[in-house]
């Protein structure tokens, strides 16, 4: 069947236009970030919607009276998860005690984290890149590169982009993010690789003993916890084992974080 010349020309220009658009997007995406002003513009548009969403989420308990059996079952599951998270948080006490002893031995004083507590507006499941959006920005004195904590010693990520009223946090568990870590129980220094949603993996020799709930700290002077061992994969004959870590808090339900240095 013959295609009219005009239609062929249109089709050709659509194909070339599409290819040019893809090349342009790849070029911009590889060599530069989305311009800060563009991100800032969309963040300003999204801010009131996030505020309303956060406010609705906090008032949802008013409707608890109308809970169904299914909701109660979900609530039960949620409470179990919270209990598990709380147990993991308690596990960091052993690390604190250990560090306290070390610090006493060296006659140094512990440095506590000073920071600002901010609300989380968007978190993974909503955000596709394993990033958080927090309700504070340049107007609140936030700076790029500041650490994001939960509690005093658990570090989740760093501020990557700051806007007037909000900031974007990149979690250490974001896919491909590599962090130097230290396993105090086995005196091992290695690299943890984020795989998303508060989960990390690390590869260490099979000869090193690792147990469930073992803490994993950032390597360096100050006590900063990245996560706790969740499971270990050891194949027979393999010289290395894969250790799965999890942040002590559930990233998907995070309501508040602390920003500090």
């Amino acid at each position: 069947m013959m295609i009219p010349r005009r239609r062929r020309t249109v089709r050709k220009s659509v194909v070339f236009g599409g290819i040019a658009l893809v090349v342009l997007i790849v070029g911009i995406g590889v060599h530069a970030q989305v311009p800060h002003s563009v991100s800032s513009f969309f963040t300003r548009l999204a801010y009131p919607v996030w505020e309303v969403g956060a406010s609705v989420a906090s008032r949802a308990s008013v409707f608890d009276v109308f809970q169904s059996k299914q909701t109660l079952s979900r609530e039960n599951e949620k409470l179990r998860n919270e209990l598990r998270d709380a147990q993991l948080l308690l596990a960091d006490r052993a690390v604190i005690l250990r560090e306290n002893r070390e610090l006493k031995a060296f006659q140094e004083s512990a440095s506590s984290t000073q920071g600002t507590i901010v609300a989380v507006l968007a978190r993974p499941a909503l955000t596709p890149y394993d990033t958080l959006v927090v309700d504070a920005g340049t107007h609140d004195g936030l700076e790029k590169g500041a650490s994001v904590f939960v509690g005093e010693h658990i570090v989740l990520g760093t501020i990557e982009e700051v806007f007037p009223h909000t900031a974007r946090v990149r979690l250490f568990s974001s896919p491909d993010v590599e962090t130097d870590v230290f396993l105090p129980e086995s005196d091992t220094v290695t690299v943890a690789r984020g795989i998303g949603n508060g989960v990390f993996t690390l590869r260490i020799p099979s000869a090193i003993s690792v147990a469930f709930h073992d803490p994993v700290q950032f390597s360096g002077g100050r006590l900063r916890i990245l996560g706790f061992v969740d499971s270990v994969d050891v194949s027979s004959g393999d010289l290395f084992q894969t250790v799965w870590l999890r942040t002590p808090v559930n990233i998907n339900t995070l309501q508040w974080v602390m920003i500090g240095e």
Partner: protein
Amino acid sequence: MMIATRILLDVAVFISLVLLPWWMTVLLVFVLLWYFPHFYEAIVAGFIIDSLYSAPLSSFGGFQLIFTLGSVFLFGIVEYTKTKVRWYDN
């Protein structure tokens, strides 16, 4: 009437990408790509997602506009498929 519906649904897409999990927005956009002719807003939605949440991923060579590029491909595939299937009323 069609334009009013389209604008209303554009607003719905924006609210969904700010408040709902990202995969729900992708699902909504996919449906709208079929419902409206040349739903260019899909590409804009991809760009807004990247603007709001993106972080460079080393497995993509530091590329940051994954959703923008994905939406361009999705747009192209759906528009091409529309011309090839009999049941779609152009």
